């Protein structure tokens, strides 16, 4: 069998001068982005050194004493680390499953909704929580889930005793609440990219499927979903890479000492460990680095798995 020729090999090679002449304006547009990337994403990487130092503001990154892995030892041997790590992993898994797919479902429902005006109305309403501050969202959630809150009253109709659900230390109540708050906040906003992608699926495919007798559900499963699958894989892979960074953003506003065992995550644990009467920047950097490395490993693994499963990948 003849070996497939790489598409790139058909592209005529051009010199950088010619490329600049042709696409110069694009490069100019890219300059601010490049500067931003260098200033805010690459230059600060020097800060990683702080994870291996007893960092002092007055001595700076290059003058602070080197302590090797001591900050990591302090981080991992802290009284709450194991539980915080377990909770972070659990909430991350829930965010990637229970928290990820509602956005896709919502997008599918939205794009198949027949009334255009109502569809737009729903879409607009779904974006709103994204623009409300996390503090307000968490305050609302705290009210709704309190002993006399609306959601608690509703749940009580089905048997469970009225209680402050956020103060319930049993697994997996806090994890689920946290994930669902995330869905509430991000579902509408996250659906934009899927809705756009679904709307761009070739209409002829749908017509052909309909002529072949496919019903609406079958058209979703056999036409729409396969068409947006590369996008779903890409978004999921990116979500995996970011999950350790994003998990726990609202936890600080929702947890309390009696739920530390189930609600404490790496970021809140690090916050408490690092900022005593004096700030321990080394420890907090070590924790951030640990989470970033984990995120990167997960990103690479999930990218590989995605490539194997569907042929689509980020890199």
């Amino acid at each position, binding site marked *: 069998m003849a070996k497939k020729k790489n598409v790139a090999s058909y592209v005529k090679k051009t010199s950088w001068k010619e490329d600049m002449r042709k696409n110069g304006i694009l490069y100019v547009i890219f300059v601010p982005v490049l500067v931003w990337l260098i200033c805010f994403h690459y230059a600060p990487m020097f800060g990683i050194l702080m994870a291996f130092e007893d960092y*002092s503001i007055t001595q700076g990154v290059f003058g602070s004493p080197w302590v090797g892995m001591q900050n990591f030892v302090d981080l991992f041997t*802290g009284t709450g680390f194991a539980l915080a790590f377990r909770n972070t992993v659990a909430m991350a898994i829930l965010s990637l499953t229970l928290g990820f797919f509602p956005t896709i479902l919502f997008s599918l429902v939205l794009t198949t909704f027949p009334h255009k005006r109502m569809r737009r109305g729903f879409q607009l309403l779904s974006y709103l929580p994204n623009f409300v501050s996390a503090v307000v969202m968490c305050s609302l959630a705290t009210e709704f889930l309190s002993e006399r809150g609306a959601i608690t009253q509703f749940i009580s109709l089905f048997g469970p005793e009225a209680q402050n659900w956020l103060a319930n230390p049993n697994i997996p109540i806090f994890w689920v609440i946290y994930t669902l708050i995330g869905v509430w906040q991000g579902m509408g906003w996250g659906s934009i990219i899927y809705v756009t992608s679904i709307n761009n699926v070739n209409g002829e495919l749908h017509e052909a499927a309909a002529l072949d007798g496919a019903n609406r559900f079958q058209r979703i499963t056999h036409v729409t979903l396969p068409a947006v699958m590369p996008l779903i894989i890409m978004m999921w892979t990116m979500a995996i890479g970011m999950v350790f960074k994003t998990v726990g953003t609202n936890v600080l506003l929702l947890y309390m000492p009696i739920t*530390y065992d189930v609600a404490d995550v790496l970021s809140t644990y690090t916050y408490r*460990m690092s900022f005593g009467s004096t700030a321990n920047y080394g420890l907090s950097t070590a924790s951030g680095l640990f989470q970033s490395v984990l995120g990167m490993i997960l990103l690479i693994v999930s990218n590989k798995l995605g490539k194997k499963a569907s042929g689509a990948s980020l890199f």
Partner: protein
Amino acid sequence: MKKKVVSLLMAGALAVSALGLSGCGESGDESSGDTWKMSYWIPKAEDAKFYDEYEDNPVLQYIEANYEFNGKKIDVDFFTAPPGSEQDDFNTLLGTEEYCDIMDLSMSTTSAAELYQKGVLQDLTDLYKEHMPNYVAFLEANPDVSDEIYSIVDGEKKVLALFGIAKEQDDPFEGFIYRRDWVAKYGKNPETGVAFTYGFADESDPESWEDDVVFPSGGDEPVYISDWEWMFDIFDKAMADLNITDGYCYSPYYLGYMETGDLTSSFGGGATGIYIDGDTVVDGYTSDNTRAYLQCMNNWYQKGWIDPNFSEHTSDMFFSVDMEKVYQGKVGLWQGRPSAVGNQLDSEDDYTSGIVVYGAKIPINDVYGGDAQKNKEPNAYMRTTKMGTSVGLTTKLSEEETIAFMEFVDFLYTEEGGMLKNYGLNQEQYDAFGSELYDQLGINGSNYTVDADGTVHTVFSSDKPESIAVTLGRCIGMTDNVDLDKGYDRFVLQAVEAWSAYENSAALRSSVQNAVSTENQKELDKLKANLDQYLARTIPTIIMGTGSYNMNDDADWEQFVKDTRKYGSDKMAGYYQEALDLLNR
């Protein structure tokens, strides 16, 4: 072309202003002629409606124009942090070495000793004695705080900062308060069994409340834990009569204990934390006093006297009581502020109509624990100290400028300087110098008057922002509040008196905390972070009886002590003991 030039000029101006805003510059080098110029970083300035820069403060301008320090006039440029970023700003200035000549240290996350060791702060040990006679005299007259000015560097006492110090400890800003109206209405004289008489002599005057309440201890105020428990029974009756089903007698802070003492100090003194007993630092986390406190709290919880959800009123940053129920009039006793005493919570509804709230002393335990935990006055509680903000004089100042600033601060410790700093301009000073701000605020003259008995009345009460803007409130110096008429009504006076009933002698003083070496402080921080997490999880379960420790069981108590010490509570006491020994040397 013209557009390009304008764009370039604008970009240039932006760059220059950005550079200018990034730090305090080298203003210390600009002293020349007849003026010492220096820069001073403060975390907070006044509202822009008063003035844009703190150097426009009328009192500062008056001093700069009329006094000389170290042979010249001074000109202080103030730099202020953006609101909400005070600590970041302080750290950025330090990190970039763009700090001012004088730095307010209230936002510092680094000790003065460490800043000195890194070459940021000057050693003022010899200079202050020579150039600040009034400051020295003030410290000698206040031996209770004279140790607080020291930092310990390599085992040696050094003065690395200048402090703002108050002539007298400020009034407590909060304390225990209770529903006096419920006690009067639903209680009976414990000796005679006769109902109390009570009411407003004049219905239109909330200050006219009178009653003849007597507590089991014999006085007209609750003094002992047994008095509190007697009150709680009365609160139960009141709530039953008013059909309050979700109320309770006492709302404690959410962790269930206070490291500073307060109610935990009732049980033999000290605190559920580190405290000082004479020359000894005590691990109060595992003391028998803490056990008695927890036994009491568990008993109260079982009886339904304390907020069943106390551990849920929480956030990482602040302690909290159940203010929602307090405002609804469903709580009998809580830790509150002067704004809640008297008739101020009356919302004219079923539960708050006719409310009268009185302040209560921290009670003395006479019920729980052994003899060592009974009948001892509380001696540790959360309270402001005489010590105020401190400033460090950085190595950017020349010795001559340093002396000039020290003389300026010293002036604020004189009678004249103290009046200027705390009360602003008097009539004579206003007439001679004038002040746009005074005119704008309608003062048009002296900001204060002094009665024959020495009582000072200011134009604006101390809770108004104007009162700080027209004085030199942001600058360090002596705080004189002794003779100030604070405008308290009889209820606030009663509450403040009750809250100040006992001496706060066992609290872990800031001088001891400051004397901890940099290395030990790092260890302390690690231990405390872990211990706090453990206790925050454990203490509420002990109080609620849902955890594995029963404080009435000796074996459980010993296990609790063992577990708590595993987190280093005794080691923490050891580090502070080392610091106290250094101070006492």
